[in-house]
């Protein structure tokens, strides 16, 4: 009935002495988990910059990033579900939380955050819902009627759109976005706490971990929002070109608006990037300087086994190169696109180097473990915790966004 599967044996190879039970138990999905949560939190913080601090230059992107963070939200929990050995018991931390565990807070923090995002979206789009109901009123056909019915449900019966109640909506959005920022930071900082508080792991244990996670989360969230925004606007431009020809006025309008949004948000991106890198370097220097018992093995992992992953791919290609690209004068769309892709890659490598790197050495400090990502699945486990699972997790938010955006249009200049 039950197959005999030693979890981790499939993708772990060992070098020198490790304890017999040591394997890479937290694999690719645990890399994906902070990555996705980071994107959610970052996207939300970006939208809040507009709603709370009135950064008007972000207006266009704020709407999009809010809806996009709603689409990302269910996906943040997905890697955990794919990683659990007993996925059917995934709800137990909610039913019987054991509060000394950092993970037990997940459900509570996550749901609080979800409530804030959903209600903020509702307040932002309530006017749109009511307008749609009025617009669709005369239309016949089952599709239009279904659509109108859905919008009616979405309003929750609040059909009032006179200026006074709209002002109330706006105030509610502001308050929610204000509460949302600390909650988003908490959601992600707590993911950092999960790692930072594992005293058995020499690489993870650091009080800086939550702060590092928050900073890199905001970086990756902004970068993803910018990238997705560019892609969607390019597609719109492409459609406009196809329909009206290259020289048409509407093409230029789209192009101008796009560049403005992008160049303004890249300023925020850079400042968060500086904060993130400074903290990570501080952590690294501190470890080397204090040189505790674990430093010997950490050094051989960081400067030896994982050198390419950490210094070339993460800090070099993922941080330094995009930073220079963004700093150089004469910013172009193509260059910004390249920079955001590299930053997203850099943050992913940071998660990888924390999660996989933290398990790259034995608790005995006398041996190493190497992780081999399963590419071609031959069982459920190698699919879930392999490339297949990664692709699934990465593609799902876009599918959600496609459907959510049908009801809460977040792209294009209207309203």
């Amino acid at each position, binding site marked *: 009935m039950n197959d005999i*599967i*030693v*979890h981790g044996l499939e993708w772990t190879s060992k070098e020198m002495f490790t304890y*017999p039970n040591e394997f890479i138990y*937290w694999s690719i999905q645990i890399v994906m988990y902070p990555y996705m949560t980071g994107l959610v939190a970052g996207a939300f913080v970006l939208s809040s910059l507009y709603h709370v601090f009135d950064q008007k230059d972000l207006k266009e992107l704020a709407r999009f990033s809010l809806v996009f963070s709603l689409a990302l939200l269910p996906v943040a929990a997905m890697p955990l579900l794919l990683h659990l050995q007993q996925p059917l018991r995934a709800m137990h931390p909610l039913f019987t939380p054991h509060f000394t565990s950092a993970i037990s807070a997940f459900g509570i923090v996550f749901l609080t955050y979800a409530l804030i995002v959903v209600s903020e979206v509702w307040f932002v789009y309530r006017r749109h819902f009511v307008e749609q109901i009025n617009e669709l009123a005369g239309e016949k056909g089952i599709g239009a009627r279904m659509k109108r019915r859905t919008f009616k449900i979405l309003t929750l019966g609040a059909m009032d759109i006179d200026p006074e109640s709209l002002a109330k909506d706006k105030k509610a959005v502001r308050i929610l976005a204000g509460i949302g920022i600390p909650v988003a930071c908490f959601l992600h900082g707590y993911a950092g706490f999960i790692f930072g508080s594992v*005293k058995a792991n020499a690489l993870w244990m650091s009080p800086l971990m939550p702060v590092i996670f928050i900073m890199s989360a905001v970086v990756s969230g902004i970068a993803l929002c910018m990238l997705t925004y560019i892609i969607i606007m390019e597609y719109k431009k492409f459609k406009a070109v196809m329909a009206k020809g290259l020289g048409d006025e509407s093409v230029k309008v789209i192009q101008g608006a796009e560049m403005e949004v992008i160049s303004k948000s890249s300023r925020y991106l850079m400042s968060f990037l500086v904060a993130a890198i400074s903290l990570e370097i501080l952590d690294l220097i501190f470890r080397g300087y204090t040189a505790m018992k674990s430093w010997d093995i950490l050094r051989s992992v960081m400067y030896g086994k994982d050198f390419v992953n950490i210094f070339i791919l993460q800090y070099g290609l993922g941080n330094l190169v995009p930073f220079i690209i963004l700093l150089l004068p004469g910013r172009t769309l193509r260059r910004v696109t390249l920079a955001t892709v590299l930053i997203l890659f850099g943050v992913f490598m940071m998660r990888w180097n924390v999660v996989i790197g933290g398990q790259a050495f034995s608790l005995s400090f006398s041996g190493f473990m190497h992780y081999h990502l399963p590419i071609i699945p031959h069982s459920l486990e190698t699919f879930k915790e392999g490339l297949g699972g990664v692709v699934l997790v990465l593609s799902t938010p876009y599918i959600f966004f496609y459907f959510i955006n049908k009801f809460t249009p977040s792209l294009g200049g209207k309203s």
Partner: protein
Amino acid sequence: MKFSRRNFLQKSIYGALAATLPLTAFKMLAPGEAAATLKESNLRWAFLVDTRKCVGCGLCVKACKNENEIPYDTPVTRTWVERYVVTKDGKTRIDSPNGARDGFTSPEMLGEKIEEKEITKAFFVPKLCNHCATPACVQVCPVGATYQTPDGVVLVDRSWCIGCGYCIMACPYGVRFFHPVHKVAEKCTFCYHRISQGMQAACVQACSFGVRQMGNIKDPDDPVTKIIMTERVGVLKDEYGTKPHVFYLGLDERVR
């Protein structure tokens, strides 16, 4: 009474709150149960390993795997034995082929042949769960599936473990793993099913050299407690503050 929408919503929230209050919150305790939860247990299990006597035969590992139904040919195991060989150049070599289930049958270590005259000292160290007084694994379990019994043994509830692996990560001793069949966190239980019935743990019984012993550390007349109280014993990795309860006689500083 006016039944407005506000009123309705208010009532539903109260109803929902009442429904979420678990019935177990109102559990009545029998007098005996109440006394048992309040009174401190006068039993605390502790383990004693005399490393000087261990010959690395691996019978303990074999017995453990059979007794506790850990699939025999998997590399994971609740207990294992490590071999340490220190050579004249000051290097320490460690190995534990298959957790020493079949003993140490080859003089080669991790594919390396060591000249006998180069060896300055060599010894075996059996390892198992330390049943810590402040266990990191219990602290981090998100659902309370791993817990400590009043007599100090750390156990896993197989029907409630969600298999997140946080306890495996939190244990500084690497004693935990996922059970290859049950797919939940697994570890040494001090053979709780045996010791609570007055029997010896499987590994203790299997050891022909008296390396492994168990006793009640709260009983000053217990032979094991006497050794722990009168001789120089060590514990593994006390820097983590977990207060391990497996004590070692003749522990070398090179033991990790």
